[in-house]
């Protein structure tokens, strides 16, 4: 049987420039999954979009063939007219995108958006399509399909939205599904479930899947065939077992080395000593009042509850949790940008043995001093640097504000900081747009370091970066910590990243800490079902260790669905109990 989709020597370019996708060939059979793997800029997204011919207007497909051998005979899609392509799109070949929120229209009900596919391709009216759509909603795991039909995308969580996207792509029973980083924007437990869903739908329908991803762990869990791309070219292609088992190309091997993994641990770690704490969050609860408009009742939302955390001087405390778990609120409270509810306080100890300062109750002079000593590194290096400021200005501005040194001193310091983060001091005159994502994150780290802080709060500093760049940034952060005796409060959603850098990990869910221990203890002996789910959901680039979906499902649900011992509903969570020295779990006695 010939492959259902065959891409042959495809070359894509913009204008007169060098092609950005060069001579790419691959083929995928019905019922099979092919993974297109690469980092940003590798051309994988352009390649997969060229199959549907939904490239940006300026892009030209310069040469090659894309042969689609569906049930209606073989055609070269590159020769197909726009009209013919519309017959193919959504009908025979459909696509799901990375960001389920932004990829669905917020103004139309999900039912309408999904049924539209059947309207376009079968000529069905909304109500005639409804039965099929509800069936599809049920297949993608909506408990109440009727309600999903009526819902707007913003009423749903990210995972549910992506399920709706999948329902939309699947409702016309396509022969090929293209999934462009379908789980990159999702939490790791949700990712595991969505991947499981795609696999199950594929088994049921026998469609072919082209999965675009940067994550080798996802590849190992999904794909039979792998194509590794870099800078527009295919580096390595072949069966997944071969490519993942023994990568032949240097680039693939590099990707492997960079992929963060949860280590196998032979024995638990010793409890962390607590004799020199630099930052102490004590009973921090933060409630926000949402006022939606004059005619509605304000809603109270508790972002985090009874959080007690200590950052040890020179160590890294990581707070791990999914979006909405309250981890960022903790960081904001710790920095003093939010005031905790009455009863909570944050203490900062400037030096060993010195008197602690209450972060939310300081004089102006104390506050200025605190701001020098506690700095923050943000998640998105693209939006956290002003595009209108030169690197020199961005790096000297903190010293400017705190009136440190003269111009020449500040410039020297900025140059020194650039060297420290592995950039060339010649780059001081450039603007941020001239830097790559990883370089920009180095710049934000350099900016945070210009005031010689003692405490760095990193809010998901690597989650917007490619894996190989993430690896470099983590190494950099570790080096700086050991070199300058820094203490980190490290916020992340990724246990594997944390495994590497943290001395202690606090796992958060629904606003409370559910388990806290040094990483080795946590991986050796995870107790809480949510921690177990997080560990199980981590995709490993090893085909012999697939994700255990059952374990994920057990802990990833709402706190009300946890086993008796851990279950709670709303504010009456059980206390955090110490199981063994340095290992705390929130459970009923």
């Amino acid at each position, binding site marked *: 049987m010939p492959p259902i989709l065959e891409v042959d020597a495809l070359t894509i370019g913009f204008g007169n420039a060098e092609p950005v996708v060069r001579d790419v060939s691959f083929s995928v059979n019905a019922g099979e999954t092919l993974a297109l793997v690469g980092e940003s800029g590798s051309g994988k997204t352009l390649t997969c979009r060229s199959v549907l011919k939904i490239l940006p207007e300026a892009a030209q497909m310069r040469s090659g063939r894309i042969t689609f051998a569906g049930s209606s005979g073989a055609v070269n899609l590159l020769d197909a007219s726009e009209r013919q392509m519309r017959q193919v799109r959504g009908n025979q070949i459909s696509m799901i995108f990375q960001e389920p929120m932004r990829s669905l229209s917020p103004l139309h009900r999900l039912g309408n958006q999904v049924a539209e596919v059947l309207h*376009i391709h079968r000529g069905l009216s909304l109500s005639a399509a409804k039965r099929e759509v509800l069936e599809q909603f049920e297949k993608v795991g909506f408990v109440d399909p009727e309600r999903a039909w009526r819902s707007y995308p913003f009423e749903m969580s990210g995972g549910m939205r992506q399920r709706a996207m999948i329902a939309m792509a699947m409702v016309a029973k396509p022969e090929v599904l293209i999934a462009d980083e379908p789980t990159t924007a999702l939490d790791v437990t949700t990712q595991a479930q969505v991947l499981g869903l795609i696999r199950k739908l594929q088994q049921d329908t026998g469609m072919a899947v082209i999965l675009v991803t940067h994550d080798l762990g996802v590849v190992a869990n999904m794909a039979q065939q792998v194509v590794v791309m870099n800078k527009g070219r295919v580096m390595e292609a072949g069966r997944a077992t071969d490519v993942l088992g023994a990568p032949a190309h240097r680039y693939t091997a590099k990707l492997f080395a960079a992929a963060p993994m949860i280590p196998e641990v032979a024995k638990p770690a010793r409890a962390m000593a607590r004799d020199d704490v630099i930052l102490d969050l004590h009973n921090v609860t933060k409630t926000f009042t949402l006022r939606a408009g004059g005619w509605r009742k304000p809603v109270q939302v508790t972002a985090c509850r009874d959080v007690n955390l200590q950052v040890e001087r020179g160590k890294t405390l990581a707070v791990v949790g999914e979006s909405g778990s309250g981890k960022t609120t903790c960081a904001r409270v710790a920095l003093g940008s939010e005031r905790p509810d009455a009863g909570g306080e944050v203490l900062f100890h400037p030096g060993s043995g010195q008197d602690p300062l209450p972060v939310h109750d300081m004089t102006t002079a104390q506050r200025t001093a605190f701001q020098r000593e506690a700095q923050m590194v943000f998640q998105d290096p693209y939006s956290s640097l002003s595009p209108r400021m030169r690197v020199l200005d961005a790096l000297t501005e903190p010293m400017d504000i705190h009136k440190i040194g003269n111009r020449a001193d500040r410039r020297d310091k900025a140059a020194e900081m650039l060297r420290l983060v592995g950039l060339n001091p010649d780059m001081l005159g450039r603007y941020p747009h001239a830097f790559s994502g990883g370089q920009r994150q180095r710049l934000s780290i350099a900016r945070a370091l210009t005031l010689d802080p003692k405490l760095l709060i990193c809010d998901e500093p690597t989650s917007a970066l490619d894996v190989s760049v993430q690896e470099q940034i983590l190494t950099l952060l570790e080096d700086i910590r050991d070199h300058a005796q820094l203490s980190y409060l490290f916020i992340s959603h990724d246990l594997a990243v944390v495994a590497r850098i943290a001395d202690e990990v606090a796992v958060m869910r629904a606003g409370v800490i559910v388990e806290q221990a040094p990483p080795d203890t946590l991986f050796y002996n995870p107790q809480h079902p949510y921690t177990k789910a997080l560990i199980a959901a981590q995709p490993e680039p090893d085909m012999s260790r697939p994700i255990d979906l059952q374990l994920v499902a057990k802990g990833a649900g709402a706190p009300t669905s946890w086993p008796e011992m851990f279950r709670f509903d709303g504010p009456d969570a059980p206390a955090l109990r110490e199981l063994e020295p340095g290992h705390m779990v929130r459970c009923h006695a």
Partner: protein
Amino acid sequence: MMFLRYAVYRFFTMLLTLWVVSILVFVIINLPPGDYLSNQIAELRATGQAEGVAKAEFLRTEYALDRPLWEQYLIWVGFSPGPNGFSGLIQGDFGWSFEFDRPVGEIVGDALWLTVLVNLAAVLFVYLIALPLGVLAAAKSETWVDYTAGFVGYLGLATPNFLLALILFYYGHKYFNLPIGGLMDPVYEGQPMSWLKVKSILLHMIVPTFVIGTSGAAAMMQRLRANMLDELSKPYVETAKAKGLAPAKLLAKYPLRMAFNPFVADIGNLLPAMVSGSVLVSVVLGLQTIGPYLLAALKSQDQFLAAFVLMFVALLTLIGTMISDMLLVLLDPRIRYGGRGA
């Protein structure tokens, strides 16, 4: 039900705003020293016309201008009794115009609904022109369609209204035999409504509508184009494309719907901008709207007339904003369900 509650809520906030506006209007009008009557009395005394002085003095007490400002305000609005009992805006008595020597209600009577009519026509014109042109310019951005639409738009923005009015009158009369000036043939003025009168008004409205609406339409078109261009690059457009939706349908269903919000929100701003912007045009074109009265009243400190016209414009604005707010709630589920979900 949610919507009904919102409508009631919005209506009461509107009344509250209107009340605050009335205080502001009254205070501002009374800021310059003296009033129409004291100016007149001074003038009459200087020229030695005693009988005139008596009449002016009578009007001063009649309209309570001799009392403290806060009392004057309460009487004007109708919160407290004046010399003739409760007789203020609330009771439907708009006061006396000293300049025209007639009750305000009588003077502005016809002008009120003609103002509403002319400006509604202009708003409609703005939307009818801006909507297709803006969408077209965005869909065919950076082609000759876009450039032509942009050029026409900037021309509309840059041409002074009164100049446009004169040019249009000249050519409109020369080639299409359109009437010049006024909002109806003088024979129908003060006559009851009739088919011929309506026809005359419609014919007279062509040029004013065009003149008052052009710059608004040009600005609105550019805004819609920019909004549309923003929306066109959003991922949900790509999703719709990947479904196999045809381009025209896609444009209308998704990005246009999204770009529509600012469009709707503008209704509130458009009305007052047109009323105050069309004062000059009304004078030049000899339209019997309240514009010319406002100008005359402000010049001669004819306080009740000026205050009434300002209150009327404020009311139009508030009603416009209320309508656009309520439309937004109907159109955009994110506003309707705000605070729920993400």
